[in-house]
């Protein structure tokens, strides 16, 4: 019998036992849908994290103080003297309170140097960033992060009004839309000068962000910056410094290695359900071989070769598994689409996901279909015909 004829027999049988076939497929459907949806969650999460990291640029170095008095503005000035470098911005932060009317909540008060907003480019929801006039000595302007704005119940009509930071009057000029961002929530932003008046930390700063002229110079700059700071504080090469220097590129690499591992873990768990689905198919196929022993005997008697029987049952298993894979893929992509809307990331049907899902379900069909199919093919015609 030609291959197409055998395939038609297998499809005919699957159609004749629709309900059972659907239930048999279910394991593979769930397994594949889980793989597709989980992969999309991991992709979406790493997309989001990378996006917020990438806004800072891959040629940047973050120098962060581990103690309140570990870094100063003078260090920033010294770093600016190095070759191939520009100082992006300096931050100084401390816990404090914010209040509007009767509402008073805790928040992180962040003093930033003038280039901060151009460098980080956070999304703005209302008003504007701190402008150059805000950075004039006398002005006391504040920009709220989204969470801080929610905490005190800010509304659009309060732009330009007075809010109190640590009891001092500030003028609200803007609110950021940084909900999807990374690490900027629950904060309010003022100028470095204002920060000094809020918490008398001069000349200490909490972090300095510097930028190499090209991404290739970043690693070298990290070493130069480190040795400069060690020299300034009289630290030997082996002494622990009270600051850390983080390289954006290595941070991105670290994050993507974490999300890759997470992805593998989740896919592994989903793959287990796919294997369970495969065992379900094998189980039903074995039952089916037993139920159809007489039919197999008759087919052998009227001229079917072992290979015809093998092919018929194997195709049945593969069709069940592959159909389960296709349904699972569709359901998984639908789930991924809605997850993307919820998580605010970009939905895309990726070719490798499709190939992976269909490839795996094909593999499951072959692996778990071979044994039942061989069992069927190896039946002796006389035993099969006599089977009650």
């Amino acid at each position, binding site marked *: *019998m030609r291959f197409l*004829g055998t395939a038609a027999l297998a499809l*005919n049988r699957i159609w004749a036992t629709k309900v059972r076939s659907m239930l048999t497929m279910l394991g593979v459907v769930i397994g594949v849908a889980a793989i597709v949806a989980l992969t999309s969650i991991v992709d979406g999460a790493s997309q989001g994290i990378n996006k917020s990291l990438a806004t800072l640029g891959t040629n940047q170095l973050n120098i962060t103080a581990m103690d309140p008095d570990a870094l100063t503005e003078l260090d920033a000035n010294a770093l600016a003297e190095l070759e191939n470098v520009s100082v992006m911005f300096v931050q100084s932060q401390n816990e404090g309170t914010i209040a509007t009317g009767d509402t008073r909540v805790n928040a992180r008060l962040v003093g930033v140097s003038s280039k901060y907003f151009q460098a980080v480019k956070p999304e703005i929801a209302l008003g504007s960033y701190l402008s150059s006039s805000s950075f004039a000595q006398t002005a006391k302007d504040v920009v709220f992060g989204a969470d801080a704005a929610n905490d005190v119940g800010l509304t659009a009509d309060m732009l330009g009004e007075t809010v109190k930071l640590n009891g001092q009057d500030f003028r609200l000029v803007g609110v950021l839309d940084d909900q999807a961002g990374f690490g900027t929530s629950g904060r309010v932003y003022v100028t470095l000068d204002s920060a000094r008046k809020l918490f008398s930390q001069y000349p200490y700063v909490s972090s300095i962000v510097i930028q190499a002229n090209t991404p290739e110079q970043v690693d070298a700059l990290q070493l130069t910056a480190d040795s400069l700071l060690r020299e300034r504080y009289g630290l030997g090469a082996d002494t622990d410094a009270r600051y850390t220097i983080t390289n954006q590129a290595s941070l991105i690499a670290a994050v993507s290695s974490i999300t890759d591992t997470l992805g593998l873990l989740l896919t592994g768990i989903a793959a287990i359900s796919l294997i369970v689905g495969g065992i379900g198919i094998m189980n039903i196929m074995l039952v089916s071989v037993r139920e159809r022993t007489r039919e197999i005997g*008759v087919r052998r*008697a*009227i001229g*079917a*070769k*072992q290979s015809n029987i093998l092919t018929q049952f194997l195709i049945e298993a593969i069709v069940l598994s592959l159909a389960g894979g296709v349904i699972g893929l569709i359901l998984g992509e639908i789930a991924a689409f809605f997850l993307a809307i919820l998580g605010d990331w970009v939905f895309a049907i990726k070719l490798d996901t499709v190939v992976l899902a269909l490839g795996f379900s094909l593999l499951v069909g072959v692996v778990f279909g071979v044994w039942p199919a061989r069992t069927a093919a190896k039946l002796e015609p006389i035993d099969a015909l006599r089977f009650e």
Partner: protein
Amino acid sequence: MANEVVRLDKVRRDYLVGDQVTTALDGVDLVIERGEFVAIVGPSGSGKSTMMNLIGCLDRPSAGTVLISGDPTNELSDNELTSLRSKAIGFVFQQFQLLPNTTAIENVMAPLLYQGISSKQAKKSASQMLTKLGLGDRLNFDRNRLSGGQQQRVAIARALVTSPDIVLADEPTGALDSKTGAAVIDLLKDLHREGRTIVLITHDLEIAASAPRRVFLRDGQIERDERGIR
């Protein structure tokens, strides 16, 4: 020699049941010529099913030689035995044994498709055979919509469609009422008159009497080989 379609020479068939050897056929010699209508008769346990399996190329002898259409079956591989069976034998079973979830014409097409004949050609031959057996208006009926007699005629069409050397009918009337059973026997007689070789396996002496030659089996041996209409 050329006219012999079945030759059994000192055929013995042993089965292992548990650790006991049972001899189902014990030194049987039998020749069936082309165009004969032979009934193999005997009570259950006489060895007639074993003989059907050997003639039907479903089984091989433990000792002795079985020649089907001149080919010895002893040394054939499973594939070669299947090919010989497909070419030489047409089976008619007691319980009709139509394939599940298939129509009358699909049943009759199946042996042709297993021979590698194209679907179009198989459909044409199957339709002609069913029409000849009076089922031209039932081609696309599945088995639930066919009476017992009609089902057995589909099974006979399936046995005949490959033009086999031997039509091997195993208790073909066993599942039918006596009137329908008689019609099936008449059909076999007609086929015999057309020149077909018919081997009828039965325990029923009355049915056996419709065959011009009757081979009686008892305890794995041929007890009697009668010829002539009684």
